């Protein structure tokens, strides 16, 4: 399996569990350790929560999730049609900053940085966003390989 795609045209927060089931199923099939799978599920949940709450302002919108095997790495591609915004530019939180200097956002990007190895943002030609979450060298070779 090189990639597999799941599309929700009117994604809402209630779809988070369904999205996790899809990602869990696809990543499990790649022979990834369960602890790593949890970290991928958590990161995916955080990213999509932010898209729905901030990109779509709590309204429903298109979300496409693609799970790709890239050598021994797993890449989660998340695409949406929300206004273009690069979450990788959200700075690492500085708890000493006064309130008025703190950027808006949540804990999500902070946790994604903790658990994923690479986070790549791209604007889509359609005017939306693509976020790629990569966990490197996690696909375990089977004995037959």
């Amino acid at each position, binding site marked *: 399996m090189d990639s597999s795609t799941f599309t929700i045209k009117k994604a809402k927060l209630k779809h988070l569990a369904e999205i996790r089931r899809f990602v869990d199923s696809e990543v499990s099939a790649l022979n990834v350790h369960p*602890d790593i799978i949890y970290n991928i599920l958590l990161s995916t*949940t955080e990213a999509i*929560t932010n898209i729905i709450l901030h990109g779509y302002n709590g309204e429903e919108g298109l979300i496409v999730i693609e799970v790709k095997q890239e050598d021994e790495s797993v890449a989660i591609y998340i695409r949406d049609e929300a206004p273009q915004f690069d979450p990788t530019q959200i700075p690492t939180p500085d*708890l000493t900053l006064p309130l008025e200097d703190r950027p808006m*956002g*949540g804990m999500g990007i*902070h*946790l994604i940085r903790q658990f994923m190895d690479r986070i790549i943002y791209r604007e889509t030609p359609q005017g939306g966003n693509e976020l790629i979450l990569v966990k490197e060298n996690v696909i375990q070779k089977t004995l037959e390989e």
Partner: protein
Amino acid sequence: MEINIEQVEGKVAVTILELHGNLDASNFEEVIDKARSVYESGARDLLIDLGDVDFMSSSGIVALHSIALLMRGEQPHDLESGWEVFHAIGRDSDSGLQEHVKILNPQPKVALTFEKTGMDNFFEIYTDRQTAIDSF
């Protein structure tokens, strides 16, 4: 999410909230609402049993922190405040353990989220139910 409530007597009356399922942005406000209802019924010491929570996102951390604020008589966060919520959590995690909301049996992966957000400095975490009850 299924939430069971139990009242027990240790050295003080303790209310146990037993959560079942996944805790994320789709349902974290249910947990806060349940805690608010038990507070309004007089509960002041709360043990949150996470033994049957298989998944918890950052929204779960916000819920637990909000509940801790509720139980000490403060208003929980404006949940639209983004980083302000996170910074408030950070300030509280630096302030040390609070006394009125404790955690029971988080699964290892859920416990890791507590660590990554510093909330293990704010919540006492127990693996034995009776020990947790007696700690209040």
